[in-house]
């Protein structure tokens, strides 16, 4: 296994790990408060839907879409996901948004689950089923896009999938053993790193993919070819650090602790 393959596995592992931790928190909250049967049924249904989504999307992307259009569609989605993560990371680092805390998220989810009315269909609690389904499917679709992008850009889908599967297994085992959210994970730091990676790959692909609108339909080329991804990564790191320093001044407030002065 080459260094590039290890890098690919590490990238998809880290990105998928963060998503799976969030999904685990939701399923745990539903399982503990509303019953494991309904929470696990929602999770199983979401996994089935994810497999169907991956097969259909993968087939459509690889057979119907020209390469440049594939880059544009997946790159744009990845760019939007990545920049949402980067925005939150910047706001958290500058003290303008509360740090994400899986324990607090778990508490909020369990409180909402306790207050929701109980409606049962086929012996399944609808609330727990729907919330578990939505949580797992939403986080899972992001993992699918991450794996597709990293796998295709590295030309090695196997290792990209390996990273995501390893993350899923570790989170599942840890969740099953601990039976509580994985709050000890440095999730905010991981999200910052993943946001930078997604924004860099997404920008590279989305701009390349604009070539689909030219007469030749070929992808645009970046200066330095694939090395431009490193240039983009460096640029996103620099601008995010500059924003962390300048945003509190723009807001016109002293640098707050992460729990104070939240933007949203």
């Amino acid at each position, binding site marked *: 296994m080459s260094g590039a393959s290890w890098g690919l596995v590490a990238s998809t592992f880290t990105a998928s790990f963060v998503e799976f931790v969030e999904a685990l928190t939701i399923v745990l909250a539903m399982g503990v408060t509303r019953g494991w049967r309904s929470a696990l049924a929602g999770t199983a249904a979401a996994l089935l839907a994810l497999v169907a989504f991956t097969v259909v999307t993968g087939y459509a992307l690889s057979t119907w879409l020209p390469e440049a259009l594939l880059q544009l569609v997946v790159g744009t*989605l990845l760019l939007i996901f990545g920049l949402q993560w980067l*925005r939150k990371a910047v706001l958290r680092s500058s003290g303008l948004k509360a740090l994400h805390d899986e324990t607090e998220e778990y508490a909020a989810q369990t409180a909402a689950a306790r207050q929701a009315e109980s409606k049962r269909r086929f012996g399944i609690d609808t609330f727990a089923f729907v919330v578990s389904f939505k949580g797992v499917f*939403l986080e899972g679709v992001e993992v699918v896009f991450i794996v597709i992008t990293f796998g295709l850009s590295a030309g090695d889908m196997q290792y990209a999938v390996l990273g995501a599967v390893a993350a899923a297994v570790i989170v599942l085992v840890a969740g099953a053993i601990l039976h509580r959210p994985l709050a000890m994970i440095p999730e905010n730091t991981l999200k910052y790193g993943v946001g930078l990676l997604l924004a860099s790959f997404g*920008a590279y692909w989305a*701009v390349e993919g604009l070539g689909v609108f030219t007469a030749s339909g070929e992808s645009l080329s970046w200066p330095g070819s694939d090395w*431009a991804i490193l240039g983009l990564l460096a640029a996103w790191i620099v601008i995010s650090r500059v*924003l962390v320093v300048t*945003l509190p001044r723009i807001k016109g407030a002293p640098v707050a602790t992460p729990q104070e002065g939240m933007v949203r």
Partner: protein
Amino acid sequence: MRFLKGFGQFWYDFIIGDDWKIAVAVVAALAVVLALLLGGVTGPALAAFGGVLLIAFFTASVVIDVRRSR
């Protein structure tokens, strides 16, 4: 109808997320690059300019967000 609404809301939450300005910034930057491309500008310099635009539009969207919350 309720299903369609829920379906639409799911994909809106998934793609647009908490801050619609990020999606607008991305689409606007790509639209500018596309306009230049269709206007005859080509080559690696255009791709690099696209990268710069994406960073600039993202920065603007975050700054607008913070200013509005003052």
